[in-house]
């Protein structure tokens, strides 16, 4: 065969945000049917590079870029995402862009609706054509099927578990017949391992049909599972480009971070049921769309790190959201023996509980505000911290200096990449936004800390750091931590006990030393029917 024309060539891409250079002379090629892995630390510039490729308006608004983008050898300059779509590029963004009130079908075919001609349309133009709903439904079904998952095309997006949202988003991109290059920005961050496997399999299937894929992830193993080639970005520069088979995980991780990594596993302690119970949850139900909790009873002890895992949609996320009063809930929760009123976030915070939400953009952050305010606001409102009383306490003046100080402290401690304490959170990379959410919870100095998906979208180096920070925090302050995660490995590396949630109930509680198989069986609900006594560890 002759030299093949790459589908995409990006040459010498350089991008500055207001004088802050985030990409320097980046070059990148993708061949037909190839899966290219793009990795790099938080803030390395991966999303920015992809936003340039996809013609996102944020790029033009912030001064454009220099360099060349060629599709099939022809130079293109996309003014907006529609241009990019027309040129056959699809993108699944780091943050969801689905319309919650629409069904899967409607979201998948948004702007690509199948239209029927009718007499009114003939007279007044194509805007009045009617929708061919059955046809749309079958197209949606087909593209969901291609992904190898089961999602009812008529489900409202608002009621789906996150994993399904991710697949819906992917289905939206692949149903287009002209699709030739698919960009996936951390599509697996919200998925459990088994779901991620399904996604990886479908990626391979797509690539086999000739579609090229750029795949961004912080789970390096996934890169080695599916990618043909890998490009490593560090501080906005390509530090290495290689065929996956010529490199290995450790080398990639080191190149990303720019230093050698010592594989350090944090030791967990044996569970001691004699220590005092800090929080007990009794027959909790939570009405959270897509994550319904039916009947959960749990006791967590002082200073424990308690993990909650399970497949997406089974209700693991509903537990902290219900306890913290964010979704309608019932049952009883007591902290240090005192009952906590449900459905009242202020009461939950007052009881010394804090929560890092899995929905960082929806609940976790004030995107348009400075990062110091984001970190301090909750502590300020619920605990009167960072406040200087004036006029004998009549005026509660915001202590901006204290707020900046605490922000600086956490920027340092969590290694948050930013231009300063007054930078708006919107402008931070996804992983750094996640760190702000953690800082916000730490600033509350809670007694009981719920963390949902704490390392979602965080790079390998930072992940160890975040887990370490949680562990240190737990050791130093005796904080009880309840961690909810889709990543079993992460739970096993830090938790003292791990509960698996299935169908809104606790299927069982295991020590971290239990085998992957035992966990797996609990997750798919196999052990329940047999009345097995895995629960005995509780």
């Amino acid at each position, binding site marked *: 065969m002759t030299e093949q024309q790459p589908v995409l060539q990006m040459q010498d891409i350089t991008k500055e945000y207001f004088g802050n250079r985030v990409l320097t002379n980046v070059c990148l090629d993708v061949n037909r049917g190839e899966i290219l892995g793009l990795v790099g630390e938080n803030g390395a510039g991966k999303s920015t590079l992809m936003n340039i490729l996809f013609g996102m308006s944020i790029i033009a608004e912030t001064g454009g870029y220099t360099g060349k983008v060629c599709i099939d050898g022809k130079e293109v300059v996309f003014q907006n995402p529609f241009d990019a779509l027309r040129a056959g590029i699809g993108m699944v963004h780091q943050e969801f862009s689905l319309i919650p009130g629409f069904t899967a079908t409607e979201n998948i075919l948004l702007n690509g609706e199948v239209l029927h001609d009718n007499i009114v349309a003939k007279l007044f133009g194509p805007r009045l054509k009617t929708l061919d709903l059955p046809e749309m439904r079958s197209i949606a079904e087909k593209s969901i099927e291609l992904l190898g998952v089961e999602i009812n095309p008529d489900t409202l997006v608002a009621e789906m578990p996150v994993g399904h949202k991710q697949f819906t988003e992917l289905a939206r991109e692949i149903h287009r017949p002209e699709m030739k290059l698919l960009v996936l920005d951390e599509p697996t961050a919200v998925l459990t391992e088994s779901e991620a496997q399904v996604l990886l399999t479908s990626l391979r299937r797509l690539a086999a049909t000739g579609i090229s894929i750029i795949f961004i992830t912080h789970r390096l193993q996934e890169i080695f599972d599916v990618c043909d080639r890998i490009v490593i970005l560090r501080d906005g520069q390509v530090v290495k480009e290689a065929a996956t088979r010529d490199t290995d995980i450790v080398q990639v991780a080191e190149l990303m971070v720019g230093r050698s990594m010592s594989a350090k596993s944090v030791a967990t302690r044996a569970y001691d049921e004699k220590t005092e119970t800090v929080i007990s949850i009794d027959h909790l139900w939570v009405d959270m769309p897509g994550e319904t909790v039916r009947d959960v009873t749990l006791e967590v002890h002082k200073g424990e790190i308690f993990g909650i895992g399970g497949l997406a949609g089974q209700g693991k996320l509903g537990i902290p959201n219900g306890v913290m009063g964010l979704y309608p809930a019932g049952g009883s929760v007591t902290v240090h023996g005192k009952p906590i009123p449900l459905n009242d976030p202020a009461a939950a915070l007052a009881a010394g509980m804090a*929560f890092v939400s899995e929905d960082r953009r929806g609940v976790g*952050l004030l995107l348009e505000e400075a990062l110091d305010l984001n970190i301090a606001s909750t502590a*300020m409102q619920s605990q009167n911290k960072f406040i200087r009383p004036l006029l004998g306490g009549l005026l509660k003046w915001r202590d901006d200096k204290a707020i900046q100080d605490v922000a600086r402290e956490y920027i340092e401690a969590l290694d948050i990449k930013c231009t300063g304490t007054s930078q708006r959170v919107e402008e931070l990379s996804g992983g750094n936004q996640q760190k702000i959410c953690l800082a916000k919870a730490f600033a509350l100095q809670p007694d009981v800390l719920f963390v949902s998906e704490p390392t979602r979208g965080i790079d390998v180096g930072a992940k160890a750091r975040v887990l370490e920070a949680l562990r240190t925090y737990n050791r130093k302050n005796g904080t009880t931590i309840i961690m909810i995660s889709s990543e079993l490995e992460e739970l096993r590396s830090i938790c003292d006990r791990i509960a698996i949630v299935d169908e809104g109930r606790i299927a069982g509680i295991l020590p971290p030393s239990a085998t992957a198989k035992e966990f797996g069986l609990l997750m798919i609900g196999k052990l329940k029917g047999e009345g097995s006594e895995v629960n005995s560890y509780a």
Partner: protein
Amino acid sequence: MRSIRRFIDTAGWPRIIIGLLLLSLFIAAPSVGVRVDQSITDTIVRFGMNGILVLGMIPMVQTGCGLNFGLPLGIIAGLLGATISIEIGLTGIAGFLGAIALAIPFAVLLGWGYGKLLNRVKGDEMMIATYVGFSSVSFMCMMWMLLPYHSPKMIWGYGGSGLRTTISLDGFWPHILDNFWAIRIGRNFMIPTGMILFFALMALIMWAFFHTKTGTAMTAVGSNPDYARAAGINVDKMRTISVIMSTVYGAIGILVYQQSFGFIQLYNGPFYMALPAVAAILIGGASVNKANITNAVIGTFLFQGILTMTPSVINNAIQSDLSEVVRIIVSDGMIVYALTRATRKSR
């Protein structure tokens, strides 16, 4: 070069263009026989008259209640304060301060009800606010006729009941702020020091408020209500407080406007106040969910400046009395322009 870019980025093109337009009007003024000193005085006075009404937009915008198209409600509270103050015969500074003191309870009460209403229609606040503005004005049109006022200064000369459409402040508190420490140079130049200081005071109070715990909570509510709720903030309460504040500022704002104008305008008067205030803050660079004091100051200055200068320059240039027509065209044109600029900062 970079600093120019930065300036353009922070100021925004619309403000730079309108600012240049205003500047060129000032430069062109002498050549068509419009006195610059007189024009500057007019601009400053109009700024002082309208500034507080525009400031009053800020709280509601900040908590995500949107632009306060229901400003007439606050104005009605101000009118009640003014008329009652006259009815009980207060004059001079006591009359003005008395009007404010009497207006505030009405504003708080009306604002509270208005806030409760807006909490029930989240997402459609601005449309409902417009209705509230319209219907309250219509309702008060009846009440001005029926309320038992007796002061002969205010009621219709014939008939002996019902308030007049326009009530002169002569003998009560005309220009009470304007003249306070006023600086006069020559016959045509005057700085209404008192009114500007009063505006500054109201702006300072607003600034200070947004530096308190409650003010910060309000900002959080406007930025992301879900975050606010998770932070234990009572979202509805913050929204209600912001509506009360906006209404109180509306009430005080109209009193300042009236003392400078010299008349109280009842009946349909409040109708025409909301849109210019909304337009001014938008021109000042506010969006539907973010506004600050700088936006209010710059916007009021640009809007009122253009509104003062265009009619007089055009009028003199073409030597005929079209000023009222030009004024309406310019004012409505700017309102329409501003409303098309009304954007919601993305979340």
